[in-house]
């Protein structure tokens, strides 16, 4: 099957290469002939904070054309030398119109107003922006940060990834967990990017919370298919998040106190209108709350914290610098002390990322961004014991560290083409295990560190093309390379998105994408444990590869402020990895005994996966009532030669039906300086996870070849259903939230009351067997979260 696909992929790649060579010629020729066309370009900002706006729409009705601002707020469009009206719109902001006399190349920097006095204009702008039928790409969902803040959450802790779980095509692993499974893909197949830096373990507290603090975020976008060529390195999704830049006009802040954690954000100008900063922090206080209840001689505790910081400097209109970073740690520790003995230990894990970016305008058609990116994930165990002066000390670590250099160019040759191209070099350093062991009892003093280095490189080109008023195309080609051990993997990845507008509010869309993934996550069930280990492709472990086709329809109901998308997809994944039967993830990283850097390979096996389904989303982004209804009907199967006796089986998170309903109702809209009330509710339903259950026990001896042994040894073994043949009970739950916002003397205060699992559904987290007093063995379940009310207090100034 896949051999035939390769032929097709080569053909598509060849056609795309020819196209891009032809485009290079056309662009060159076009410049020579472009005397009668001029360039309109500039940056689009929030008027009050001077924050650059991503994805603002620039429309030129006279020529029935337009463009959108890029990830740095820049736009450029080449038009006939003429006088015409330009309309600029962005969700939540007032629409703005200009009359432009484009006799020469013109720079038009635009500031949009969030003013309440322009409500009607805001609605018009929102309607303009929300038109999905006018976008080339499909399978992309942008989530307004304001909605993330309004949706009720477990313990009141707002969580970007948990909101993403509510979208069609995205499944969550289990109760309360932030992990995500997109269109049948595994948890390692999501490219999670924060200000261009890869985040390797996006979870706190075993996946119950994600590490993204919504207060510091400016935009969140999920891509499930039809991937543009600029993205690569993962099979199933891209979650692209940008941090806010910081207000360039005045000091602002937000703070909140919740049941489990507190947080604050502070932003403001460094040099007014030129440079600004943003810092945010969050910390939990389980440890502080539980400390008084623990005996002095034996104490334990857990906490996590996050720090985000960003600064930017607008050197001049052609150059901008950004520096941003994230640092977060989870720590569980314990100490005990009795007489002459003392013991302490714990585990820590966390991410650190840093990004230095330089935006440069080569000219009014060409925008570039150069990024130097650092990303580090570390997991560590430490233990120290002393008795009567003798000491035992163990420090164990595993992790991954990346250094990455990236250069991207946006080129706008004319109104019908937006060409993006770039290169990326990533130096990965994997540490499957490193330890220091000092034991004065036995005289041991050992240090060992196992490192694996590899390079992952890519170059890409893509073009967003308008062909008349009906057709839009986004062809792209990515060339990726990975060096591992003695092998170099080189792959061409063709991408294509097509959109045909039957009417201005109705479009049919299709896409194809081929993805390669060179690094893999060893994780048993994807529940986000810190022991999950990233490992590279190697001579034996091939890169994962997937191809996906999708087709669908997007319809905008402009007057009603609704948009409807229906998409079908088929995805095949090759060389996906899984633990072998019986392999224990607790030992998979080899720990101290292993000196072979690739020792984990003996525990894993590779196979194939298939996922297909239909997704429906009815979304309302503007108005008093916003939210969405999502429904997914999907099937996901796997086949591994070494699992389930080679037979196909359902993936653990295969979910036949998945429904989510999200509603946010602003009783009166609590804009910045107003009193207001917001009511919100979510309801989710999902088919139960597919799991393997033991069904019988039987004597299962190991043969003993020794003549000294009269019998075989070993005891009983379990007989299971075939792999993942048992369905857990369906999952469903309703959460509600109520926000009361009031303008106070110095700040705007919001009380939020929320109830998680309102009707106290006992959703199973896992099953186990237990014997009752009569000798009956029963299947029992553990439920993690029954009904949980919470309250939080937030201020904004």
């Amino acid at each position, binding site marked *: 099957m896949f051999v035939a696909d390769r032929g097709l992929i080569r053909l598509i790649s060849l056609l795309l290469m020819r196209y891009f060579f032809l485009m290079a010629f056309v662009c060159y020729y076009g410049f020579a002939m472009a005397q009668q066309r001029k360039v309109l370009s500039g940056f689009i900002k929030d008027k009050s904070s001077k924050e650059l706006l991503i994805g603002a729409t620039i429309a030129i009705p006279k020529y029935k054309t337009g463009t959108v601002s890029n990830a740095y707020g820049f736009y450029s469009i080449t038009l006939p030398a003429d006088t015409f009206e330009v309309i600029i719109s962005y969700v939540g902001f007032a629409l703005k119109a200009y009359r432009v006399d484009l006799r020469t190349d013109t720079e038009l920097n635009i500031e949009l107003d969030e003013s309440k006095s322009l409500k009607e204009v805001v609605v018009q702008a929102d309607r303009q922006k929300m038109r999905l039928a006018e976008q080339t790409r499909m399978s992309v969902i942008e989530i307004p940060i304001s909605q993330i803040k309004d949706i009720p959450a477990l313990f009141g802790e707002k969580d970007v990834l948990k909101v993403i779980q509510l979208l069609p095509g995205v499944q969550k692993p289990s109760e309360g967990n932030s992990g995500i499974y997109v269109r049948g893909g595994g948890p390692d197949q999501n490219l999670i990017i924060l200000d261009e830096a890869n985040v390797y373990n996006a979870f706190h507290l075993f996946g119950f919370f994600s590490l993204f603090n919504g207060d510091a975020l400016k935009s969140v976008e999920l891509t499930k298919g039809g991937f543009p060529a600029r993205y690569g390195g993962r099979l199933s999704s891209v979650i692209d998040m940008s941090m806010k830049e910081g207000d360039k006009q005045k000091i602002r802040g937000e703070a909140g106190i919740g049941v489990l954690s507190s947080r604050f954000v502070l932003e403001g100008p460094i040099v007014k209108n030129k440079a600004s900063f943003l810092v945010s922090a969050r910390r939990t206080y389980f440890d502080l709350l539980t400390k008084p209840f623990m005996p002095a001689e034996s104490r334990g505790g857990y906490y996590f914290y996050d720090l985000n910081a960003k600064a930017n400097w607008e050197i001049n209109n052609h150059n901008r610098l950004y520096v941003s970073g994230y640092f977060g740690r989870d720590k569980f520790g314990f100490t005990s002390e009795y007489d002459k003995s003392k013991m302490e230990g714990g585990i820590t894990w966390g991410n650190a990322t840093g990004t230095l970016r330089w935006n440069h305008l080569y000219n009014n058609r060409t925008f570039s961004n150069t990024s130097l990116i650092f990303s580090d994930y570390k997991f560590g*165990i430490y233990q120290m014991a002393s008795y009567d002066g003798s000491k035992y000390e163990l420090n164990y670590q595993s992790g991954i560290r990346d250094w990455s250099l990236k250069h991207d160019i946006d080129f706008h040759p004319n109104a019908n083409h937006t060409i993006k191209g770039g290169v990326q070099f990533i130096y990965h350093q994997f540490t499957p295990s490193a330890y220091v062991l000092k034991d004065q009892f036995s005289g041991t003093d050992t240090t060992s560190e196992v490192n694996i280095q590899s390079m992952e490189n890519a170059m890409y080109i893509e073009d967003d093309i308008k062909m008349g008023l009906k057709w839009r195309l986004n062809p792209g080609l990515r060339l990726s390379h990975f060096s591992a051990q003695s092998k170099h993997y080189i792959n061409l990845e063709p991408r294509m998105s097509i959109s045909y507008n039957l009417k201005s509010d109705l479009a049919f869309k299709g896409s194809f994408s081929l993805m390669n993934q060179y690094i893999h996550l060893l994780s048993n069930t994807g529940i986000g444990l810190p022991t999950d280990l990233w490992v590279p492709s190697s001579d034996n472990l091939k890169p994962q590869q997937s191809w996906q086709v999708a087709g669908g329809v997007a319809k905008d109901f402009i007057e009603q402020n609704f948009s409807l998308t229906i998409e079908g997809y088929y995805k095949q994944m090759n060389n996906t990895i899984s633990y072998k039967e019986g392999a224990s993830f607790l030992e998979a990283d080899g720990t101290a005994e292993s000196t072979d850097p690739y020792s984990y390979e003996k525990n894993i096996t590779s196979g194939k996966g298939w996922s297909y389904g239909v997704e429906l989303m009815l979304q309302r982004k503007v108005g008093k009532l916003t939210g969405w209804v999502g429904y997914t009907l999907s099937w996901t199967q796997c086949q591994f030669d070494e699992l389930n006796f080679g037979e196909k089986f359902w993936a653990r998170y295969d979910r036949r039906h998945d429904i989510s309903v999200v509603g946010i109702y602003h009783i009166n809209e609590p804009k910045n300086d107003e009193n207001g009330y917001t009511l919100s509710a979510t309801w989710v339903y999902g088919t139960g996870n597919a799991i393997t259950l033991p069904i019988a026990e039987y004597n299962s001896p190991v043969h003993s070849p020794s003549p000294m042994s009269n019998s075989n040894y070993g005891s009983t073994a379990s007989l299971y259903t075939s792999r993942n043949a048992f369905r857990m009970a369906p999952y469903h739950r309703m959460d509600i939230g109520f926000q009361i916002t009031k303008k106070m003397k110095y700040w705007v205060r919001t009380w939020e009351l929320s109830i998680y699992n309102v009707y106290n559904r*006992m959703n199973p987290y896992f099953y186990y067997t237990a014997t009752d007093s009569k000798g009956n063995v029963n299947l029992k379940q553990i439920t993690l979260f029954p009904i*949980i009310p919470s309250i939080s207090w937030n201020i904004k100034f």
Partner: protein
Amino acid sequence: MKTLIYSLFIVVCIGCMSCEKMAQDVTPPKVESQLVVFSFLSPEEKLVKVEVSKSKPVYGNAGGGSNIVSSATVTITNDGGLSVEVPYVDSLSAYAVAQSAYSIEPGRTYTVNVQAGGKTASGRCTVPQDSLSFSAVTFLSISQPSVGYDGPYFIYNYKWQDAAGQKNYYRVDVEKIYTYQYNGDTSETSENVCNSIWDDENKDGGILNGKCEDYSWQSDGSDVRVYLLNTDIHYYEYHRRRLNYYGDNPFSEPFQQYNNVQGGLGVVSAYRITSRMLKVN
């Protein structure tokens, strides 16, 4: 060390207001008890042995007591039509007959048939033709301490030549034999130090070699016996899984055991065996 993580995870899961109760909205899978048959046949063994038991469904009340079935009718038939009914031997808790009464011959196919309680189960295997021997077995004494172990240890190296032109499966076991005094008598006991399962993939007709690291105490002066088993595919597939099975563990993937018994569970398989003795000092 990772027990720490295990403990923390359990504390977090169970401690987070968890509730346990009977599983709702699902019906546990219901299965009937099945006959379980295990037989490892070899021309080199004194006895032809078949172990018969019955499986216990997990859910419901399967009752206590032994699973062993002692009242079955067990017959073994070879591909020449020669058959024997195998009697139950209490002392072995198994059905057994001496090779002198019914011999297992290289290259022959044997069918084990079991009838009990109205149920029938049967399994078939073919005895490997060749009995292979080690071409070399050596040992090294290492005095340098290793991680987590501060005493000297031994490494046993062994190698043998694969039989070319056919798919072969092997098992290698290393057994340490101790002598001890009890009530003035000298007795022997043994301990299995290593076992491993092999096939000849990509090494057809070549030399296969392996090693066993022995950290057990009291190694000096012990006898070590190294076994080489040339097995059929059923023996290999069953033991490949079984030797890595340490019971149910919520943190490892469920593990299906290999089964070649029709109408029941278990394995009927065959092997040839040779061994080499070493004196460790």
